[in-house]
């Protein structure tokens, strides 16, 4: 397992905390006309909090081909120095494209909360 249970738990708490602090705000804090004045601020909207399934990679099967990294529509996968790929819980929506595209069937989708 790439993401240890401990990191996973921390991230899940982080999702709630960051979502509250960064993107969920009162109407008075919005810019005029709801304009976005900071580039790349969509990072602050932690879209991962409504995921129902998460990808789990079996490193024994993984051949480090990077297909998950290429196909992920949200650019959630990041290459590690070891050659494996880790995914960011804050943004993964659980679409399952990585699991579908993985040529070695190394990625399985697991229900959140299981």
């Amino acid at each position, binding site marked *: 397992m790439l993401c240890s249970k401990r990191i996973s738990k921390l991230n899940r708490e982080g999702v709630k905390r960051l979502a509250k602090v960064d*993107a*969920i*705000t*009162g*109407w008075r804090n*919005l*810019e*005029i*006309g*709801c*304009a*976005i*004045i900071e*580039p790349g601020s969509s990072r602050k*909207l932690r879209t991962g909090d409504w995921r129902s399934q998460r990808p789990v990679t079996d490193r024994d099967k993984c051949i480090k081909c990077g297909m998950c990294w290429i196909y992920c529509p949200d650019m959630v996968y990041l290459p590690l120095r070891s050659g494996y790929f880790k995914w960011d819980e804050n943004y993964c929506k659980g679409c399952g494209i990585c699991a579908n595209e993985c040529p070695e069937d190394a990625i399985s989708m697991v229900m959140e909360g299981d």
Partner: protein
Amino acid sequence: MPKRVGIEVSLAASEAACAVDSDVIAAYPITPQTHIVEHLSELVADGKLDAEFIPVESEHSAMSVCIGSSAVGARTFTASSAQGLALMHEILFIAPALRTPIVMAVVNRAMSGPISIWNDHSDIMAERDVGWIQTFAENGQEVFDLIIHAFRVAEDPKVLLPVMVNLDGFTLSHVIEPIEMLNAREVRRYIKPYKPQMVLDPKHPVTMGAVGVPEVYTEAKQQIESVLRASKKVVVSAWKEFARLYGRTYRPIETYRTKGAEVVLMTMGSVSETAMTAVDKMRDKEIAVGLMRFRLWRPFPLEEFRRAVKGVKVLAVLDRAISYGAQGGPVFMEVRSALYGQAGQPNISGFVAGLGGRDITTDMFEEMVKKAIRYAKKGKGPTYELIGVREK
């Protein structure tokens, strides 16, 4: 004082947009708005107005261009009517949402079908909820003044909302009236250079019109709602300043001979002048009738309306648009709702008249007033009715 000149009201509207030194005009011609746009293109072509005149392929594009030009900080003007206004519909919502202070003259015309180029308020009433400030003119002078006023209000940093100035098609737009025209120098005392608060500028990139996910959409709506409601103060203070500088006074609710009136007629737009004559005639016949007109329709001037209506026993509300299958015309429904639960609320009757260019005569106003009195005495009557429908 400025000179009074005889001028077609449409041309006066264009001259108002010229006097404030508009930067961009994007419009598509449609009867009866055509003369406004034609004259503006002449003013630009003749070098009298230093502006970009953008002839577009539809009203949908016209409003889209207006939003774009306003977003880069250009003072923007347009005009439309009926089907054209309806074609703008989806874009109209976006202008207040992006806080682009566009000014538009809406030359009120009936919506098809059947096809009608003539005047009523069915076009503007269908755009009631788009988030624009909406004012109504009764004569040519008011058209000129309200357009100048519209720029002042729209561009106020506390407002930054688009404004529609409504004038009746043909009955106002195509008549020649004596109008005191303010020139650019005189207008500069009232209209300062536009200082946009949020602007598209490559040096300081911002995103306008991003998606509003469910977490933010409600808050975005609250911003528009709050600003639109609060804009009433600016609308009123800008009218006060206008009166101080140019001597003509405007109010959200205009009244005529309402002192001691037991019955009050409620109207909007140019027909109000006929209604004044009707009130005079009825007063001569000892009917204690007065007249109230909405000058400001959005934001709805609730406090002013309730104050004005105090002590009135019978209200006869005129709608110049039909709201099929509803409980009355849009104005009637709003008026009744504004008075619901108020102590001593008057008996309210709604009348729909003047559709698709049908004249409203003083006799028709008398009919409305008499019917409203009769229904109030009987304690019942139709919620609303069409006046002047031929049965045979």
